[in-house]
């Protein structure tokens, strides 16, 4: 197989790199107490929230950036980032949303109007630092489901926010979580009441648009006893020569018999093949299976970002609770991803499943890092881990770092790992049947990811497959 054909096959142009020219309210770069007071004032937040932010900021100042990940990147200058950017004239209804923003979402294939609603998906759209529109809220309210921006939740549901925010990811959990706690600008809040099966898919779309702006969103989802929700997030950013920082925090909580299914399609701008530009994605995602028989399932398809540092985790506290992590991470160009999961077994008969598929092409570096921890209290815990790497070409790399800490001897823990290359023989077989080389590569890659894609809700599985094609296939032909 000729290398240049493959290189072409795996270096599609980033399709979502457009920038929308809208009037924004953006503060100057830099971070100090004043910045935080400014953000809080802009959001008209209650005092308690400002106090939390300031406390987090003080702690963050004493912390240092972690460097244990297998990643190489230029130091981040936290003073050169603007921590707040909002489209001017915050809208009250869809009619008031700046048409340019609506157009931007339309270009992304995320129309905020009837079309999406017909599909029965409620959407929250976060543009730079603020939520511009949450659709379907009224319909959801009938079922008692709260689906709004985190800023609204701080205003309207302070008791829930106070009770659960920081309860899964403490403010000082890590450097980036602390930074987020201080400067988070928006994000999504979901509460599903007891016994309610959320009648539709919930979805948030995050878009970084403004130059030199960081995005720090915070998502909090609470599934009360016996409830169920499937939540999806997507993201993208314009093509820029500079790196942009994205440091989000996601907290999930499931009470007794509740289930949260959380799916991510991450497509931040990846930078170019020399590593110029692209998003630095440092994200803390954690779910707490608080009640017995509860379940949290993470599915992620990671194709974007220059740097990905992300370990969606489950703390299995309730007895018989279940944690799942299904991941496809693609690194091409000069992308680096250090991603995986932590499964912390605390309750009895808890079980976890990890399926990680890493695909590396061109100069991409893909690292799986996972921890399975079984506490003494977690009798009869079970884990099954499967980490597969697929290499395309010979300049890329894949590394696996599985960690295991078990204090319980009755548990059952299995780990399987494999590394494979797309073989010339497989490609030739498909080409002999009249399938073009790029279609053949895509077919083999899709086959490799099948187990993970099958976990995605149908609409998103289609999107994920198309995205993978764009990322890996591109301009050939």
């Amino acid at each position, binding site marked *: 197989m000729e290398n240049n054909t493959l290189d072409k096959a795996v270096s599609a142009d980033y399709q979502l790199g457009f920038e929308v020219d809208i009037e924004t309210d953006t503060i100057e770069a830099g971070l100090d107490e004043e910045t935080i007071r400014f953000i809080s004032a802009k959001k008209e937040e209650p005092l308690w929230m400002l106090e939390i932010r300031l406390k987090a900021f003080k702690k963050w100042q004493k912390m240092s950036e972690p460097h244990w990940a297998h990643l190489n990147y230029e130091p981040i200058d936290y003073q050169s980032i603007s921590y707040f950017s909002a489209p001017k004239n915050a809208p009250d209804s869809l009619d008031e949303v700046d048409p340019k923003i609506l157009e931007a979402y339309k270009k992304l294939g995320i129309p905020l109007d009837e079309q999406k609603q017909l599909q029965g998906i409620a959407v929250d759209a976060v543009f730079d630092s603020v939520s511009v529109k949450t659709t379907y809220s009224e319909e959801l309210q009938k079922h008692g489901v709260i689906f709004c921006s985190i800023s609204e939740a701080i205003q309207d549901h302070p008791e829930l926010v106070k009770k659960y925010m920081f309860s899964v990811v403490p403010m000082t959990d890590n450097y980036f979580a602390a930074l987020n706690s201080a400067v988070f600008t928006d994000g999504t809040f979901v509460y599903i009441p007891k016994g309610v099966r959320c009648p539709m898919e919930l979805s948030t779309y995050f878009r970084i648009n403004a130059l030199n702006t960081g995005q720090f969103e915070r998502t909090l989802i609470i599934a009360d006893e016996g409830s169920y929700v499937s939540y999806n997030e997507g993201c993208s950013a314009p093509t820029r020569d500079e790196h942009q920082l994205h440091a989000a925090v996601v907290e999930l909580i499931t009470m007794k018999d509740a289930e949260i299914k959380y799916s991510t399609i991450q497509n931040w701008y990846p930078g170019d093949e020399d590593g110029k530009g692209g998003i630095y994605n440092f994200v803390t995602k954690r779910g707490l299976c608080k009640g017995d028989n509860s379940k949290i399932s993470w599915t992620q398809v990671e194709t974007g970002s220059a740097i990905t540092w992300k370990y969606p985790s489950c703390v299995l506290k309730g007895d018989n609770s279940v944690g799942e992590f299904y991941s496809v991470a693609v690194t091409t160009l000069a992308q680096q991803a250090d991603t995986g999961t932590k499964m912390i077994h605390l309750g009895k008969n808890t079980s976890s499943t990890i399926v990680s598929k890493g695909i590396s092409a061109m100069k991409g570096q893909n690292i799986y890092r996972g921890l399975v921890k079984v506490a003494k209290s977690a009798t009869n815990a079970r884990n099954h881990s499967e980490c597969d790497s697929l290499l395309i070409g010979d300049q890329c790399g894949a590394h696996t770092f599985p960690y295991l800490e078990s204090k319980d001897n009755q548990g059952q823990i299995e780990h399987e790992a494999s590394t494979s290359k797309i073989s010339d023989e497989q490609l030739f077989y498909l080409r*002999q049947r009249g399938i073009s080389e790029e279609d053949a590569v895509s*077919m083999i890659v899709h086959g490799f990811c099948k187990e993970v894609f099958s976990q995605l809700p149908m609409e998103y599985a289609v999107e994920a497959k198309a995205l993978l094609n764009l990322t890996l296939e591109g301009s050939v032909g």
Partner: protein
Amino acid sequence: MLTIKNLHANIGDNKILQGLDLTLEAGKVHVIMGPNGAGKSTLSKAIVGHYDVEVTEGSIDYKGKDIVKLPAEERALEGIFMSFQNPTEIPGVNNAYFLRTALNAKLKHEGKEELNAAEFLRVMREKLSSLEMKTDMLSRSLNEGFSGGEKKRNEILQMLILKPDVIILDEIDSGLDIDALKAVAEGINSMQDGKRTFLVITHYRRLLDYLTPDYIHVLKNGKILKTAGVELVDKLEEEGYDWIKAE
């Protein structure tokens, strides 16, 4: 239909084919026999454009042009099909999805309308039953965990679906029990329409008993050294290849 002239081909540093001439006629069944290492598989790989084989001299004329430099997928789309000796396994790729993609690529190439999933399934069911294959073969991953016989039947299934013009069967009979051999042979015979050309590579007559070969070619030392009718098979089975010298 397909004319090979003075073909020289290497695999790595080994010169395998050394001035091979062969003409495949429309509507005929050509059989290639010969000792191990004579270059039978290299010949079929050279025709389909396999990455292992480097053609250094000579031509392969097909449908009015020399295809030696044509990419493998274009030769396939133009109607050249080869069944693999050891079909490779591709995990996670659904067999039906693969077959439909291949068929639609061909239909598109021919300017015809692509088949939707329902139409495709109808075609598949019919072919499957003719090969005595179970329908679960469609939902399994391509060749993954297939037995030797299942893999060979799956090759024939692809041939039936793609309806190629030149069909190269490289040791399709190896590893088949008698029932599978019969099913495979019936599949091959059902494709005979007086226009298609078959190139059958085999070591044994047991497959040939179910087919109707028109020519037996003996490939030895990188060349076709002898061409005769089906009666040659008996002599080869009895006497081997030692007696065959360049004519």
